[in-house]
């Protein structure tokens, strides 16, 4: 059956990548990015990264509303809960071991145990901000990444299964890929793959894992005939707005300083987002006869996703190209590809995050400019087509690892607590069946 084969293939690919990396790239380890504990704290930089951390935290409840508004009324609480429980759980996991595995000195593949339980992670400067500031900023990234996955599996995944997935996934999928890209000695960073704020680490991992979970879960009852319109568009709009504004912290905060590159990242984030939102609206108008607000919000999120890896490396004109591209790629991915392939990705996490993240990571290799960020590289249109190689390796490796490991985790959960709610629970609604709660009780 296709599922098994797919799983096998991706696992093998992941293994190959890992082997290749361990032989071919181990000697090229970049100097530790997060680990150099020197320098003094700059209050302006620290102010910006603390504010950015708050901004990134608000993204996850924003996501809860963005997703929840599109879910059905009887699944609203559960949909929001899936995001909210990630905040509560990953915040603890990250402090206890997640941060250490991701960012402590280790090998090319994974971090060490030095910073377990934040031992040795204190107020001293890392670059120009306290080490704790860097730690908590990264914590918010780990939170939102898994929360993104939930959009694909809402309306049918058991809450206990989701709860079990959280620490497993964050440990086995997120931490390694995060270390590869941003950790000291990580191999993807080592080969020069550029990912400013998480196109691979955040969006490909979440989107690819979402795809695997969709395949293991199967579709909702009656899909695709039973597809319903969003139950509350204002919540979806508000959620998209909170994502947009929080994303300034996500991207511009990833500079870890309040400098010119942060300003540039802020500008291209806004520009690409606007372009993608606008593009999706135009496509909606063309294909459905009317521009929809949910479409514009979806497009905006697609733009945010795509500009993420590029945000510290490209200029405004590059960001327009990336944004328009994101609108195109994610629109057709969410509308046509999903239909063609037939999986039930409830809220289009694959179409928007996996595809948008891949496009963004690739496009970084096209539009990056050394003149924007001397710590980056020139991209293809600035005469360096070779940058597309590490970018492509980064994309492929993230897909492979996320798919392979998520498949294993899904199997484990399937045969322990079970993945999918019973048909009766699904029909009654996940809110009452999983939580004994009802989103709206207007009779009271």
């Amino acid at each position, binding site marked *: 059956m296709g599922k098994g084969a797919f799983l096998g293939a991706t696992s093998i690919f992941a293994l190959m990548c890992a082997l290749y990396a361990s032989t071919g790239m181990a000697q090229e380890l970049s100097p530790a990015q997060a680990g150099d504990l020197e320098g003094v704290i700059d209050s302006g930089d620290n102010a910006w990264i603390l504010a950015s951390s708050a901004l990134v935290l608000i993204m996850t409840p924003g996501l809860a509303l963005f997703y929840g508004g599109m879910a059905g009324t009887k699944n609203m609480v559960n949909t929001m809960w899936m995001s909210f429980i990630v905040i509560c759980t990953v915040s603890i996991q990250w402090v206890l071991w997640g941060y250490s595995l991701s960012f402590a000195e280790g090998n090319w593949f994974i971090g060490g145990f030095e910073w377990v339980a934040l031992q040795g992670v204190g107020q001293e400067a890392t670059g120009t901000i306290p080490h704790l500031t860097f730690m908590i900023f990264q914590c918010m990234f780990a939170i939102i990444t898994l929360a993104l996955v939930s959009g694909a599996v809402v309306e049918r995944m058991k809450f206990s299964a989701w709860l079990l997935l959280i620490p497993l996934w964050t440990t086995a999928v997120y931490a390694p890929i995060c270390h590869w890209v941003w950790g000291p000695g990580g191999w993807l960073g080592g080969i020069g793959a550029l990912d400013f704020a998480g196109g691979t680490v955040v969006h490909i991992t979440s989107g690819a894992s979402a795809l695997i979970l969709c395949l293991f879960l199967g579709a909702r009852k009656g899909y695709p005939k039973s597809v319903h319109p969003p139950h509350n568009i204002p919540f979806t709009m508000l959620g998209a707005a909170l994502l947009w504004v929080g994303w300034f912290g996500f991207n511009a905060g990833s500079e870890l300083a309040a400098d010119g590159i942060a300003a540039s990242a802020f500008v291209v984030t806004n520009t690409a987002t606007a372009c993608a939102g606008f593009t999706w609206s135009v496509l909606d108008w063309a294909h459905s006869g009317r521009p929809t607000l949910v*479409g514009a919000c979806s497009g905006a999120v697609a733009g945010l996703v795509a500009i993420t890896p590029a945000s510290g490396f490209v200029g405004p004109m590059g960001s327009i190209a990336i944004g328009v591209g994101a609108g195109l790629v994610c629109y057709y991915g969410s509308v046509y590809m999903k239909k063609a392939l037939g999986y039930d990705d409830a809220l289009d996490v694959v179409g928007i995050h996996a595809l948008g993240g891949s496009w963004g990571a690739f496009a970084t290799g096209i539009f990056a400019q050394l003149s924007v960020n001397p710590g980056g590289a020139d991209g293809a249109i600035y005469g360096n087509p070779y940058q597309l190689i590490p970018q492509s390796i980064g994309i492929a490796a993230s897909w492979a690892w996320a798919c392979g490991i998520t498949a294993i985790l899904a199997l484990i959960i399937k045969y322990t607590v079970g993945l999918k709610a019973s048909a009766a629970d699904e029909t009654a609604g996940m809110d009452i069946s999983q939580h004994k709660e009802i989103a709206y009780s207007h009779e009271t």
Partner: protein
Amino acid sequence: MKKVEAIIRVGKLNAVKAALEEIKHPGLTVTNVRGHGVQKGITETWRGKSIKIDLLDKVKIEIVSPDKDVSKIIAAIVEEGKTGNVGDGKIFVSTVDEVVRIRTGEKGEKAVS
């Protein structure tokens, strides 16, 4: 005693209500309903997918009144509820055996006034 039940357009509620007030109807009860008949539905769009909504919002008015007032009431509803386009709705008349006013326990015609 009769019950006059009318399914009308949402936007016509105020006009019909006013017309009934003019003929001094005794009271009425309104329910939000959705309906479907000759009139076709509307189409919503979500992420490129068309979703047909074949039940349209309507309003149901229920008026219980003495038999003699029924024709006046029907006339008022038709007069004010009509646009001439499909979807204007229907009126159903049925028989009520007994009426009680909860506040007083009064029964019959006195109870509806």
